[in-house]
């Protein structure tokens, strides 16, 4: 009797919980200031409009591996995942994300331009719904670089003029491109050179000249911290991290926009979601990736909206009140010398170059 009662009670609870989760949506993102910007610009207005409760899961760093595991277990617990463009390509290749018909599924720009034209080249994979443009660039300690602040990316390799430690990503991306650029390779030839074993050796040889002065970072927060501690003179990181160290925390840090590596971040929808959940996610995406919403996000973080039509709508920082446009990687003044990450190239050569890079690091 008692057992039956317990059983009934638990069943009732499960049913109630099931009913509750029907109105819940799990969104996976990077956490920190970035998740906060999404919460303010997308989640809160959407919840107010529809009553759907959005649950944040800060697991984007392990998203690719976890989605693969979920897919194999046949139990997808995430509804929407924020990933870097390179990861979106991987997930699409593995069949772990659904393909998107951007024009049919997403809002058009206010002037009627279709979504795919408005997003333009930021749609790097048919599964990818772009959200922001960010860049990997270099910050430096204004009080440690001497009288003449660096203006070129090649300051990284100039130990005579700017002695001291620098911090670089422990992955080859951006490092090898900058190395070749500063070794005299023309910008448009860099990926052709990098596709050859000799070109890869050449990039590593250039990096070799500063190797004993480099602290290698693995998390985006490392470089701002190392700069703030005075551990390094200069170092690479994401532009939003530098913005918050400079503008929000008033650290004696300056930043370079020269040869910044532009990259995209955006949404993917996991493959294998039940139909009702997928429908809910698509409804959210239609709302959260329209022109106004993308522009709103820029009030909380200095990453540029991926839609062209959003750029004129970018306003001021929500707390500091400063204009955000000049801090965007896509601002014309900042974008005079830009690399756009070559996803196709990196999808092919990432493993190969990474193996060489790690072997070189271990030497």
């Amino acid at each position, binding site marked *: 009797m008692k057992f039956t009662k317990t059983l009934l009670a638990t069943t009732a609870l499960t049913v109630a919980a099931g009913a509750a989760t029907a109105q819940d949506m799990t969104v996976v993102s990077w956490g920190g200031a970035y998740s906060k910007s999404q919460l303010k610009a997308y989640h809160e207005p959407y919840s107010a409009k529809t009553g759907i409760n959005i649950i944040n899961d800060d697991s984007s760093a392990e998203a690719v591996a976890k989605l693969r595991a979920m897919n194999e277990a046949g139990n997808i617990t995430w509804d929407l995942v924020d990933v870097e463009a390179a990861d979106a390509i991987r997930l699409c290749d*593995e069949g772990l994300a659904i393909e998107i018909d951007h024009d049919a599924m997403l809002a058009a720009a206010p002037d009627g331009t279709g979504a795919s034209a408005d997003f333009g080249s930021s749609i790097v994979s048919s599964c990818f719904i772009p959200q922001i443009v960010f860049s990997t660039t270099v910050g430096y300690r204004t009080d440690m670089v001497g009288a003449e602040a660096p203006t070129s990316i090649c300051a990284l390799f100039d130990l005579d003029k700017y002695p001291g430690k620098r911090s670089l990503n422990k992955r080859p991306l951006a490092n090898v491109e900058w190395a070749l650029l500063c070794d005299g390779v023309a910008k448009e030839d860099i990926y052709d050179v990098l596709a050859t074993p000799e070109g890869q050796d050449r990039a590593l040889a250039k990096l070799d000249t500063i190797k004993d002065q480099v602290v290698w970072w693995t998390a985006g927060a490392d470089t701002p911290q190392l700069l703030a501690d*005075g551990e390094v003179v200069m170092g690479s990181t994401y532009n939003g991290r530098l913005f918050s160290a400079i503008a929000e925390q008033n650290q004696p840090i300056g930043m370079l926009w020269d040869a910044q590596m532009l990259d995209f971040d955006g949404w993917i929808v996991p493959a294998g979601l039940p139909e009702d959940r997928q429908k809910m996610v698509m409804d959210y995406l239609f709302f959260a990736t329209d022109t106004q919403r993308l522009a709103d996000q820029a009030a909380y973080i200095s990453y540029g909206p991926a839609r062209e039509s959003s750029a004129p709508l970018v306003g001021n920082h929500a707390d500091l009140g400063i204009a955000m446009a000049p801090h965007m990687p896509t601002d014309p003044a900042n974008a005079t010398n830009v690399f756009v990450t070559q996803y196709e190239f990196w999808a092919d050569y990432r*493993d190969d170059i990474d193996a060489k890079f*790690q072997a070189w690091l*271990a030497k």
Partner: protein
Amino acid sequence: MTDTSAHQPMIDATGVPLKKSLARSLRREKIRALLLVSPLLLFVLLTFIFPIGSMLFRSVENDIVSNVLPRTVVELQNWDAKSGELPDEAVFAAFVADFVVAVEEKNHTRLGSRLNYESSGMSSLFRKSGRKVAEWNPETDGPFKDKLIAADKNWGNVETWAIIQTHSGKFTNGYFLNAVDMQRTPNGIEMQPENKQILIKLFLRTVKMSLIITGMCILLGYPVAWILANLPNRSANMLMILVLLPFWTSLLVRTSAWKVMLQNQGVINDVLVWLGMVADDARLEIINNQFGTIVAMTHILLPFMILPMYSVMQTIPPSYLRAAKSLGATNWTAFWRVYFPQSVPGIGAGSILVFILAIGYYITPEIVGGTDGVFISNRIAYHISSSLNWGLAAALGAILLAVVLVLYWAYDKIVGIDNVKLG
């Protein structure tokens, strides 16, 4: 009396031979015991052995090629890669037929990334060709040889087909070869080019540094355990808290604390500069290298050494030492000949614990290890979460497991596992 019992089996009250009834009751006992442990057994099987087994199985599994390209694999068997000639039209037709199905099922990019582990460029070749081939009709649009080569010139490359042929088996030793810096090529098994050889080096470094860390833990932990075991209970408990407190603190917090201590502008360097022991422009490099990893990991793993040592030392009666001394032994002889041998089981248990934990450590080397202080697990993590090359990750994991088992076996032979005591 003894004679009869030797020839005639002893019989119990019910007339059944005693041996039989004893065996039966023992069996019943065993079944009952088995039933009692069966929930745990089932739990271990389901949550431990099965998942780990299925993960490790990926290190040899390779059915993706023959599943996605079944007809091509069969046709390719008749082709000799060494001839230097492209396969004939039959192979191309079979390939297009397979590929159209694969694109429909969206398997082709997955196969592309699998083959990209063996040869860079396969991933984009499959992705790009997928878009073009999707519109072809395998029945009517042939012949395909020139058409496919026109779609992407890499299909006119003998190497491309040789790679598909080499890796078409259902099972592969390719991942294990990769894990020891070798590779499977159309020309047989070869070493990786020298500038890509890293994994053997990492394995050796992992074992070497784990041994150093274990050694450091013994040196630092032994006196602490000795003091803990020989102090009166009240003060021993106080000291015990000092051992346990870090044990309860988050691993990340402790590792980050070491970062603050050891870095260039960190506490240790600042103090040394202030004392005038090192010059301000020649601060010590004690982080982002092997030294940093050894220091941080020794600290983090120390409780795992102290606790088993302590529990063993507690059981050694102090009267033995007094007896030795009263018989004329010096302090050192009494310690070395009487006390130390009895504490060896504690050292053994602590060493096994620390060594096995150290060999699989990941987060601490990642944070304080720089480039020459990272372990093989950091590479496994990269392949699990970034490159998605789970086959290679599984092979590396299997080798690591084998190394631990071999060392465990060696330990059993040399010291004897019965001599290990956890308390």
